[in-house]
């Protein structure tokens, strides 16, 4: 091709420089553009989860987050929901390693007395068709803990002598699920209430 540039060193570096520079500039600007929406999307997800697990509130819980220390030097993020300045519930983002695959995260909401209000799965890699039955859209298995207070309700799978019905053929997932709630519950009761 006549217009084709020669492959000299200067040409090569120059071309690559120009291409990368143009690409980078464009991307930079697009990043700036999408930065807001991305943050917003993330926040929306969190807020939605909080709204699902606590009663109606009028504050912005994600602006009032605080950390709760747990045993292994880690800590859980808590979002207090308030209505008219009064604490109506606390959403805690908790996790477990007892599931079938990798660590999974759930959001659990506690009433100030420690009663479980509701749960929401934040992210998981459990097997579709088995472990994912804990998701709300795949069934209402997880609702069985709603309204229970772990003080009187044994947070353990029935197989292990507790009160929770396991998902059939997915005992690991079930164990993980209650383990995550238990983790949050214990931390919450150990002075995690921010009235």
């Amino acid at each position, binding site marked *: 091709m006549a217009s084709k540039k020669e492959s000299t060193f200067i040409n090569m570096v120059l071309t690559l420089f120009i291409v990368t520079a143009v*690409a*980078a500039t464009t*991307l930079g600007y697009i*990043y700036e553009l999408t930065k807001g929406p991305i943050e917003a999307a993330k926040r929306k997800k969190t807020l939605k989860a909080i709204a699902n697990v606590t009663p109606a509130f009028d504050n912005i819980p994600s602006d009032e987050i605080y950390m709760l220390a747990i045993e292994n030097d880690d800590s859980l993020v808590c979002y207090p929901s308030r209505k008219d300045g009064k604490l109506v519930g606390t959403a805690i983002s908790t996790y477990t390693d007892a599931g*079938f695959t990798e660590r999974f995260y759930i959001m659990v909401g506690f009433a100030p007395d420690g009663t479980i209000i509701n749960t929401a799965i934040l992210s998981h890699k459990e097997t579709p068709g088995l472990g994912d039955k804990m998701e709300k859209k795949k069934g209402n298995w997880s609702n069985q803990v709603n309204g229970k207070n772990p003080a009187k309700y044994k947070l353990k799978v029935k197989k292990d002598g507790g009160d929770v019905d396991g998902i059939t053929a997915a005992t*690991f997932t079930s164990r993980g699920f209650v383990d995550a709630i238990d983790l949050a519950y214990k931390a919450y009761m150990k002075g995690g209430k921010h009235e």
Partner: protein
Amino acid sequence: MEYFLIIIAAIFVNNIVLAKFLGVCPFLGVSSKISTAVGMTGAVAFVMVLATIVTYLLQKYVLETLGITYMQTITFILVIASLVQLVEIMLKKVSPSLYQALGIFLPLITTNCAVLGVAIMAAMNKDFGLMESTVFAFANAVGFGIAIILFSGMREHLDLVKVPEGMKGVPISLVVAGLLALAFMGFAGIA
């Protein structure tokens, strides 16, 4: 023990090809003979480990420091592409015999998801330091190797038997890969 778990998980439980679906093109493409599968494994292992080290450092010391992790994709692929080419050029000169063995596979590796995928997975894993990432990359290469070598053995077998016309070639190979993945599910939960 930590490393041991990483290795077992990467090779058997979450095999990169059979469970994670990365590197499927070379898995299907360069597996018609056992010898080529072995060559490909060598080349992948080499590039995967090297690329993971370089991209890991880039991620931790440049992208994260500057807060531009969104540029991960573009920088990683550039690094991998250049690395592959560099290795190819040097190998050709420094060790023609090794080049003979691995060289033909090298260009295929730029377009191998497994390398980019492993680099990204290593860089994104908060628990991984440089050493863990390196081990992780190597273990995944071994996992890739085991899968592709077993697969190539079975394909050599298939070349000799009378597979029905419609299933010949790719279709039956995919069924074999599926059944291999089915068998590997037995390792679930080990690590």
